[in-house]
């Protein structure tokens, strides 16, 4: 008979899980790609640290100023800032909770209480949570320096506020995880998310135009915000500073009610997960239906000029594009961005009264911005292939066909996007002079084709698998991001210098001539690179297959 194991304490379990995550990280560093990826992450970490510590100072100074100057109601603003960041930022960074799937721990003999506490502890491992905790501590320090007597109350409020935020964040994350378990729901959600992000760009021009009439309505809403946790935290602190214990107790009690409510709801969610909630998305077997032969016919071949493998890859890429909610929607962005920017800063639109950037500079500037956005995915162009990458290596073709197919699709998309954007520009701002138009068009060819060569190299050297319509754990390879960043700065810098040489030398057609030469060189270089990249793909195929078949 097997021995019965002794119960393991919650802290021991958390220690074991932390150790597990550390070992996973340490072991992953045995691979060169993961080490390079870590370098990229360290760069990102340095930037993030600057943001966190910079804002720590701001929160410290804010809390100190509001308390020392007696502007106690303003403290709520600081709590609101942290609250919104803590709850909304995880959506921006595409993930709720750490990448490690803590539900896998359910196979072990955990009690529901232990499962709940570990789940909550994971919430503190998020970037948003870590940053928010730092800012809350900075606020506490600022408030204490201004009025040392508030320290005990501040500690209590901050502790409840932290617990409330992490509970709410886990609750939202857990509900979203359930709702987004099905692929279609996930993609729909992602589409709505992207659309809402695009819509945010219209806020500024709309505020310029309708801000004054919307203000009274917004002010009428303000009193209702007073009953939300950040306002309550601010009011509790103001009450204790003014020595109003009854108001402090009332605000703290409502804050605690929120905490208990969120905790009860999260307990219910975790209890469902603990019981083994099924989140599978595989379709149930369906009764066989009669097959329609005609319905599967592709019709005439519109890509007959291409070789069959390249045409097959272009067709497959097009299907993938139309089924990738994020990529599909990102195509809407360029013309929309031109609309937004032109409303904000350019040309003869109604709100700017004709005082904006000239079409002469707006056109190349916007084209550079569009290329920056649309070329970024090309640096990890196999991200969505998954296990299908094996087909490319098993099929009787050279990898140059794969690059050609994928690049052809991207260039077609870019051509359509640029044409749409150009039409939008002509409508909103007007077209630039002929020499600027020609120079910019040639510069577009130079920067796109030049980047394609680098992007192809990056895609096979630093591959990173990504999932369609998925938010959790979606992160580009750190090195691919650095390469993209570097080459975009290089191309953009070269293009900017050449564009300005026209003005400096007085020869307005000089940039156009230079860009035509560079574009021809880039096209030649692109085709010359294909064979070398094919050999490199053959050398790197194990890395590619391993990275994408996970």
């Amino acid at each position: 008979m097997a021995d019965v194991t002794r119960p393991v304490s919650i802290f021991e379990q958390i220690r074991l899980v932390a150790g597990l995550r550390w070992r996973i990280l340490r072991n992953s560093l045995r691979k060169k790609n993961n080490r390079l990826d870590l370098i990229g992450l360290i760069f990102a970490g340095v930037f993030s640290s600057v943001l966190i510590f910079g804002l720590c100072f701001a929160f410290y100074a804010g809390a100190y100023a509001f308390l020392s100057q007696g502007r106690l109601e303003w403290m709520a603003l600081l709590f609101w800032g942290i609250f919104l960041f803590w709850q909304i930022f995880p959506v921006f960074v595409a993930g709720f909770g750490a990448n490690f799937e803590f539900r896998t721990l359910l196979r072990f003999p955990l009690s529901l209480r232990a499962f709940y506490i570990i789940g909550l502890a994971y919430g503190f491992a998020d970037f948003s949570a870590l940053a928010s905790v730092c800012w809350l501590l900075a606020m506490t320090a600022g408030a204490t320096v201004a009025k040392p007597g508030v320290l005990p109350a501040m500690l209590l409020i901050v502790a409840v506020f932290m617990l409330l935020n992490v509970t709410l964040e886990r609750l939202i994350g857990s509900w979203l995880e359930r709702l987004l378990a099905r692929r279609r729901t996930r993609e729909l959600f992602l589409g709505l998310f992207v659309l809402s992000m695009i819509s945010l760009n219209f806020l500024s021009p709309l505020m310029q135009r309708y801000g004054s009439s919307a203000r009274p309505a917004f002010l009428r809403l303000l009193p209702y915000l007073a009953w939300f946790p950040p306002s309550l935290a601010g009011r509790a602190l103001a009450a204790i500073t003014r020595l109003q214990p009854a108001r402090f107790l009332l605000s703290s009690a409502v804050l605690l009610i929120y905490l208990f409510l969120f905790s009860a709801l999260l307990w219910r969610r975790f209890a469902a997960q603990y019981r083994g909630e099924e989140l599978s998305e595989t379709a149930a077997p369906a009764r066989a239906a009669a097959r329609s032969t005609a319905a599967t016919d592709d019709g005439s071949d519109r890509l007959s000029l291409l070789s069959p493998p390249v045409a097959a890859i272009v067709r497959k890429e097009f299907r993938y594009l139309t089924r990738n909610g994020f990529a599909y929607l990102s195509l809407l962005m360029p013309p929309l961005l031109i609309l937004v920017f032109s409303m904000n800063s350019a040309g003869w639109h109604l709100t700017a009264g004709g005082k904006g950037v000239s079409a002469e500079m707006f056109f190349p500037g916007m084209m550079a911005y569009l290329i920056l956005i649309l070329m970024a995915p090309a640096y990890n162009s196999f991200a969505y292939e998954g296990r299908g990458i094996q087909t490319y290596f098993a099929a009787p073709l050279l990898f140059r066909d794969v690059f050609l197919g994928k690049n052809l699709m991207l260039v077609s998309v870019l051509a359509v996007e640029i044409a749409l954007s150009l039409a939008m520009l002509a409508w909103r701002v007007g077209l630039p002079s002929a020499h600027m138009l020609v120079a910019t068009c040639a510069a577009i060819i130079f920067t796109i084709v030049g980047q394609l060569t680098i992007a192809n190299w990056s895609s096979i050297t630093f591959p990173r698998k990504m999932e369609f319509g998925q938010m959790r754990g979606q992160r580009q390879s750190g090195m691919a991001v650095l390469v993209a960043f570097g080459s975009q700065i290089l191309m953009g810098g070269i293009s900017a210098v050449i564009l300005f040489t026209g003005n400096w030398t007085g020869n307005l057609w000089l940039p156009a001539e230079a860009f035509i030469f560079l574009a021809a060189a880039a096209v030649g270089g692109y085709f010359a690179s294909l064979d070398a990249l094919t050999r490199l793909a053959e050398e790197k195929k194990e890395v590619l297959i391993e990275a994408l078949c996970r």
Partner: protein
Amino acid sequence: MPEMAIQTQKLTRKFGNLTAVDGVDLQVTAGQFFGFLGPNGAGKSTTIKILTGLLAPTSGSIELLGVDFDSNPVEVKRQIGVVPEGMGLFERLTGSEYLKFVGRMYGLDRATTQRRSEELLDFMQLADRPKTMIADYSHGMQKKLALAAAVIHGPRILFLDEPFEGVDALAAGALKALLARMTERGTTIFLTSHVLEIVERLCSHVAIIHKGRLVAQGSLEELRAGISGEAGSKTTLEEIFLSIVGQDGTERPQLEELSWLM
């Protein structure tokens, strides 16, 4: 002399200090139904990946249908079909789209690709969900689709890595019949499986790899005779396998060591 479908010489693959495949000399005659066996981690999947171009060997040579793989990879790949370990499917295509994609990648014309993909989907009982994406297929359905894609161009050698894993008994029966028919018509099938009964029933020839080395190769009769010392013996493949792989006495787990569990 019979045509050789697969011939390797001193095929070796190292991962750092680990030699996953160690000087393997395989010889498979055209038209054979060849079973490639070995315990977990023996090097079966690594060998199949090398033979299909998914992994480069550290050293050694491969000839498929008399053509050197290293110098003519495209020509060789045109002649083979493969169901790799992860199945290699593009999950955002429908089954029909994927088969058409593969058909065109192998150079079939559109009409042939269209006709064959419809026939294969029908045969694999996948035709009733024309709009379902592969991501939404069950594991067994994906396996059947991967097999359909591997045969759409009529390969002369078919490499199958655990083809029956996750496939229901009904479909498995149909697949076995299909594979048997293909060998009758001259296709060479190179198959790995952990289910020895399947290998014993389907395969005419078997090779056993152990710790990266080829430890046995031949027809089932030859292997039986090698073990029992007499021709026509009734030794099962499992007995042959255990006898060869467990020869050094270290392979069989010793139950006595787990006395605390009993």
